[in-house]
């Protein structure tokens, strides 16, 4: 079966579907008509897409934590706590690592051991093992809309169970849940598997049920230049829209420089609208998600509050539709529910205080936006060229050729030739462009900005600079400057 960016034929979809639902016993619980009847009873105020759309119209930013534990009752308790004490606007259900690798037997062992030792032995909620009824218990036990967040290259069964289970939003994508999350899953396979997930969402949409879809924005979370994550977000938006997805939330992970971060969020929305409209997807609604700092955190909780708060402030100033919240326990591993709630409360305080600030405007911001747009367009146009107009084909070929390339990704299907580094002001630039299809004008901007930093530090730009930048936040700085 040749990969192409075309809507999956229904027969073909059903054929795959039979196989998928048979791959684990809980697959048998899914009855599509019954699921649609169930979802259609969930009112607008508890639907993810609707709440995001309203926030976008009001120009406010919603706060959403990450959270998931092994057992159903404990997971419900956790979400309720984050909703009431934490004042979360949107809720998550983070899936455990075994489920992400389709290792349901090991997930089951984790569930059993969690029951016997009385604490969660899994780093998330194993939704496939728990099945449809348990998922419905979860979403019914809270007032806010709940999204499934994971990191699964082949998420077809999880998608079936999640949607039948009443979740109204779903993270992931064929590129963003492969390249940073796997070592040797071919892109053709993950894109095709995510076409299935998107087709299912598209079918729900056809039946009048809005399901929000969110490509995973931050990728490897380490010095990813906006043009890279923007390109992938837009590729996945186009792939999803082709399958009938209507509500898209595109993401970006905080780099740390205010101007670049605001420019990134604003340009992401504008670029997405541009490409979706160009390819004829007129009725999709694009919202944005800003991820608080995804790199290493300070061990100290007060300092972690500082990092969290700066992320919240940037999200508010960029007027992102939602912000994904870190916790003061970030450096220590999986947080307690109290620490999780603390992160949300600090974030909400800032979001509320800053909701009245006007949108930033300056010459620098405009220039940064235009640069990001020019870079992203250069990549996307080259991929379209590679795919002879087919963006799915172009994506696979483009990754092979390294014209789209994610820094520090584990996948062998990623060229891994880029070298990002911060400029003097902390914005992420490129020291080595690998095979990115940038013109000399763009390259010259990067070279100049990195040279400016090199000059003030009295050293030639090199990989040592990249290393210093990666270590910087752990040392309380943004730029790994030599002074």
């Amino acid at each position, binding site marked *: 079966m040749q990969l192409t960016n075309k809507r999956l034929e229904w027969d073909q979809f059903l054929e795959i579907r039979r196989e998928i639902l048979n791959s684990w016993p809980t697959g048998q619980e899914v009855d599509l008509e019954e699921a649609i009847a169930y979802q259609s009873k969930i009112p607008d105020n508890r639907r993810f897409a609707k709440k995001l759309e309203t926030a976008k119209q009001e120009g406010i930013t919603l706060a959403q934590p990450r959270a998931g534990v092994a057992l159903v009752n404990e997971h419900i308790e956790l979400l309720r706590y984050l909703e009431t004490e934490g004042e979360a606007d949107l809720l998550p259900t983070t899936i455990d690592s075994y489920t992400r690798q389709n290792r349901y037997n090991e997930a089951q062992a984790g569930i059993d051991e969690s029951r016997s030792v009385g604490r969660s032995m899994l780093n998330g909620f194993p939704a496939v093992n728990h099945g449809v009824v348990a998922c419905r218990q979860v979403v019914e036990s809270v007032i806010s809309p709940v999204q499934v967040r994971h990191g699964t290259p082949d998420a077809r069964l999880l998608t079936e169970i999640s949607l039948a289970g009443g979740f109204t939003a779903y993270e992931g994508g064929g590129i963003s849940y492969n390249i940073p*999350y796997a*070592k040797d899953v071919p892109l053709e396979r993950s894109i095709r598997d995510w076409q299935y997930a998107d087709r299912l969402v598209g079918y729900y949409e056809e039946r009048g049920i809005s399901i929000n879809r969110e490509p995973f924005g931050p990728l*490897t979370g380490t010095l990813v230049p906006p043009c890279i994550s923007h390109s992938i977000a837009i590729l996945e938006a186009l792939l999803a829209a082709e399958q009938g997805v209507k509500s898209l939330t595109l993401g970006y992970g905080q780099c740390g420089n205010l101007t670049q971060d605001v420019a990134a969020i604003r340009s992401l929305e504008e670029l997405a609208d541009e490409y979706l409209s160009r390819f004829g997807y007129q009725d999709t609604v694009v919202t944005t998600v800003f991820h608080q700092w995804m790199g290493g955190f300070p061990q100290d909780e007060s300092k972690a509050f500082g990092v969290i708060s700066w992320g919240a402030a940037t999200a508010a100033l960029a007027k992102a539709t939602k912000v994904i919240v870190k916790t003061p326990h970030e450096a220590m591993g999986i947080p307690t529910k109290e620490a999780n709630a603390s992160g949300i409360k600090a974030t909400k305080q800032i979001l509320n205080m800053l909701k009245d600030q006007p949108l930033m405007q300056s010459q620098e911001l405009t220039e940064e936006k235009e640069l990001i747009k020019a870079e992203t367009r250069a990549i996307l146009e080259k991929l379209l060229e590679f795919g002879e107009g087919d963006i799915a084909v172009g994506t696979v070929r483009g990754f092979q050729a390294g014209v789209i390339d994610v820094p520090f990704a*584990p996948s062998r299907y990623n060229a891994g030739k880029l070298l990002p580094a911060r400029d003097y002001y902390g914005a992420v630039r490129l020291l080595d462009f690998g095979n990115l299809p940038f013109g000399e004008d763009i390259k010259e901007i990067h070279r100049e900005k990195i040279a400016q930093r090199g000059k003030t530090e009295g050293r030639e730009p090199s990989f040592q600079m990249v*290393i210093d930048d*990666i*270590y910087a936040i*752990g040392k309380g700085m943004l730029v790994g400057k030599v002074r």
Partner: protein
Amino acid sequence: MVEEKKQLTLVLGVIGADVHAVGNRILEYAFTEAGFKVVNIGVMASQEEFINAAVETNANAILVSSLYGHGEIDCRGLREKAVEAGIGDIKLYVGGNLVVGKQDWQAVEKKFLAMGFDRAYPPGTMPQEAIDDLLMDFGFVQKC
């Protein structure tokens, strides 16, 4: 001296089910820049992959990274596998977040040396430190 260093071959990888790729890339770059021949087997590498790569490339040292806390389980028996494969005297270095939770580094280091590693590095070690140690362990005199 640059000529001599080029003869040293290092096998580099992240052991176990660990997908942390950032540090691996940093090390590959830093060791290559320093003049070593680097055979990078990447993330999610098994003990067998480390040993096979070392045998095939006639490597001088194996450098194991582990960032996700399961290093203790994943590294146990690596020296024995090297002996079985007939490269029992290869240098074994290990570094990263080697254990779950915050533990006293002296105790952790002792544990890994007892496992047959020649050197162990705590979290936050800069690549230059390992480069200096390699040069010293292989008898290259340092210029400064």
